[in-house]
């Protein structure tokens, strides 16, 4: 008797939800866009940042009535953080009819996906696919490996280093002795080169540079001793995750006075994990709430309400990508809203609003132009991060023109006739 009534309750509530779900489903005309993210595997933390940005940005678009009267629903595909996963997901997406693919995550996966999309487009010129890489920072993606259907809505090593040293030297915080410590793979080597290139224009001396094994170093103390011996005042590093945290721990516990200039310090968990060791470090990042005034505060609040997380680091690049994309789609006729060529041409001319100024795409190599904020980790920051008493205190907001590094002409893309 009792069991029966329980079963009845379950059945009714199940049927009810199913019905309501179907109702909602039929009420909106939807367009699906595939988003390839590392939701599992070693870079799942980055995937989470992107997913927050994607969820927020699409809800923003849909709340404003969608594009051409249609809601856009993201479908997240998990690449597991591997190049093979990325390749498989691209084929799944294309097979499912995707014309526009968003990708978030590391450069290696982005490079694999970009190459796949390029080959697909060469073999199927009548049915091209558009790719937006939301977070890959490797320089080659908009240089040698660029192609017409690939866009990158994040920075690269040159832009980050330029923003860091410019902001710090203009505020007399850089000093004249700079040490570069980076991971020994393409990204780290690009950071290393960028630190050396900027020495002359920003009048500092590179007193030492180190490239170390990625995610294998257990103890950075020996490197810290090298930094100490060099007498560096600022240490520039593109390290992320564990290599960044351990480096900062070693420096803090050795009582070294050098300040850190970083790229990925504001990713989730870093400041909480580093604790006091993070104080005084700088980061060049797309968003610092305090620097954005009222607008920054509103964005922070809305983002938080939707995702339960702060808009940090790469999550913001996802928002920029989707704001640009939705405006580009709105700019083409409705029948072309999923025409990759039309949308790509529109993207080249689109600008989108951002808290710290406008963002746009450089037609020459499809690199994003964006403002960056250099912030300092401080307990005096207005908005705290990671549930700690620390946050980012803005040092300087750099406009898109200030962060831009001119293309070197190595990008030779074949434009559609």
């Amino acid at each position, binding site marked *: 008797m009792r069991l029966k009534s329980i079963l009845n309750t379950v059945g009714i509530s199940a049927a009810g939800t199913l019905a309501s779900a179907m109702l909602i489903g039929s009420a909106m005309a939807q367009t699906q866009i595939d988003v390839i993210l590392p939701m599992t595997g070693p870079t799942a933390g980055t995937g989470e940042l992107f997913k927050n940005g994607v969820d927020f940005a699409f809800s923003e678009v849909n709340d404003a009535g969608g594009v051409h009267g249609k809601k856009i629903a993201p479908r997240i595909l998990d690449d597991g953080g591997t190049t093979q996963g990325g390749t498989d997901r691209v084929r799944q997406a294309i097979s499912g009819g995707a014309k526009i693919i968003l990708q978030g995550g590391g450069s*290696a996966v982005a490079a694999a996906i970009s190459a796949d999309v390029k080959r697909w487009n060469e073999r199927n010129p009548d049915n091209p696919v558009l790719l937006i890489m939301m977070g890959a920072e490797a320089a080659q993606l908009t240089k040698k490996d660029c192609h017409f259907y690939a866009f990158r809505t994040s920075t690269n090593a040159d832009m980050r280093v330029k923003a860091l040293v410019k902001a710090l030297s203009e505020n007399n915080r850089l000093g004249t002795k700079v040490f570069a410590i980076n991971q020994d793979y393409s990204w780290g080597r690009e950071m290393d080169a960028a630190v050396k290139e900027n020495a002359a224009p920003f009048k500092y001396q590179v007193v030492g540079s180190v490239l170390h094994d990625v995610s294998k170093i257990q103890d950075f103390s020996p490197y810290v001793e090298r930094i100490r011996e060099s007498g560096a005042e600022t240490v520039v590093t593109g390290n992320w995750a564990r290599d960044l945290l351990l480096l900062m721990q070693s420096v803090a516990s050795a009582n070294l006075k050098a300040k850190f200039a970083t790229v990925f310090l504001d990713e989730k968990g870093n400041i909480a994990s580093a604790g006091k060791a993070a104080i005084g470090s700088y980061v060049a990042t797309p968003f610092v709430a305090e620097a954005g005034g009222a607008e920054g505060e509103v964005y922070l609040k809305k983002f938080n309400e939707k995702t339960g997380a702060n808009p940090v680091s790469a999550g913001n690049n996802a928002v920029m990508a989707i704001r640009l994309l939705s405006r580009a789609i709105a700019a083409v006729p409705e029948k072309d809203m999923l025409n990759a060529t039309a949308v790509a041409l529109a993207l080249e001319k689109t600008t989108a609003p951002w808290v710290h100024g406008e963002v746009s795409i450089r037609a020459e190599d499809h690199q994003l132009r964006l403002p960056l904020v250099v912030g300092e980790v401080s307990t005096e920051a207005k908005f705290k991060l990671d549930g700690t008493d620390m946050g980012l205190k803005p040092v300087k907001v750099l406009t898109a023109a200030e962060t831009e590094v001119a293309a070197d002409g190595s990008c030779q893309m074949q434009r559609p006739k």
Partner: protein
Amino acid sequence: MPPQEQSPRSSARVTVVRILPIALVLGALIGLPRFADMAFLNAMVMVCIAALYAMGYNLLWGQAGLISFGHATYFAFGASCTIMTMAAIEGGSSFPTPLLPLAGGAASFLMGLVAGWFATIRTGVYFAMITVAITELVRAIVQRWDSMFGGEAGITSIRMAWGPIGFQKLLDVYYFTLAWTIIGILLLWFLQRSPLGTVIRGIREQEERVRFLGYDTHALKTLVFAISAGVSGMAGGLLAFTNESTNVALYEGAYSTTVLINTVIGGAGVFLGPVVGATLTTLFGYYVANLTYYWLLYMGLLFMVIVVYAPRGISGLGVDAVRRLRSGAPVRWDLLGRFALGWLVVTIGAIMTIELIGAVVQPSYGALARSSGVAWPPVRVFWVSWSPASPLTLGGIALLFGLGAVLLRDTAGTASRNVSTLADAIAGKPGPGV
């Protein structure tokens, strides 16, 4: 691992029984592209590659009894050398495109000769640790040698046409991969049947005796290692051919892990066991990854269940079941039904638990709770919305697990006897476990 089934069979009927299923599967594989979309065809290409890789890997395990924890090196090296050859063809070399996987296979074979000579000096855990050490050393060099291996961005090339075959469509790639996978598996089959195969199994069981018979066991083990590496390299070559790119990430541990898991799940003791495992896990990863973010956890659970309850893998279960059926033991349908139902309810219970926990701990769930004003907003699992904290949901999950525990208990009802394997269920015997 238990030894291979080697009893000679002569009757024609047995041959038909053995050949027929293989012919059916082959027919299905050849006819598949008529019904498959691009995504599924790609998945099947990946299945072929994973299967060939696992088969090559299992030559070492199933035949020689050596478990490698670093086979990714040979898989990846095969891929690298194949892509370099492809680039050479692109640059005008006359190497015939259809023989590309052989380039990878040969390169890995040579590398396997060197690595294998060192590794097979030891056995057991020490052998495994040497394979790990070699993998780490190779990885460290390859990841720094950008001008050779292309670094993080990898090397890309393009498939060049050969005679009438364009190799541009995925369809061509599918048949190409399938053909080479079958060639590779046949090669391993004949090797296993050859006198060399017998000697290798002899080394696994009684190395001393084989040595006293006058064989140089170290040289033989090195040869087996190299052949295993070579077949893995061929699989890597097929991957490079399919993707038209390679990446230094291939040299990382994940690719050593996957092949091990495939072999365990499929069963190392049955010739085609690794193929079963590779098929299952590849398709699982390919499709389930888009349904749930916890697919690796499910994979881990499956692995654990297999290790504990089906130590000879899925194919081992099948072989046992067939043998017991042949021996004339009556089928205990009641036990079989309980077995199936028991595992089904436990699986559903586990999925419910994991999905609900996974949904509730997300920061966005907290945000939803705050914005909607509901303490426990509903979560959708199995197309139904559940309130995660309601007694109905929690009680339902507890009920599923309780039911499973009751169903999987033997009729005798003693605590130590569980109906654990399919074969046990068929034969009505308690499991070997406890």
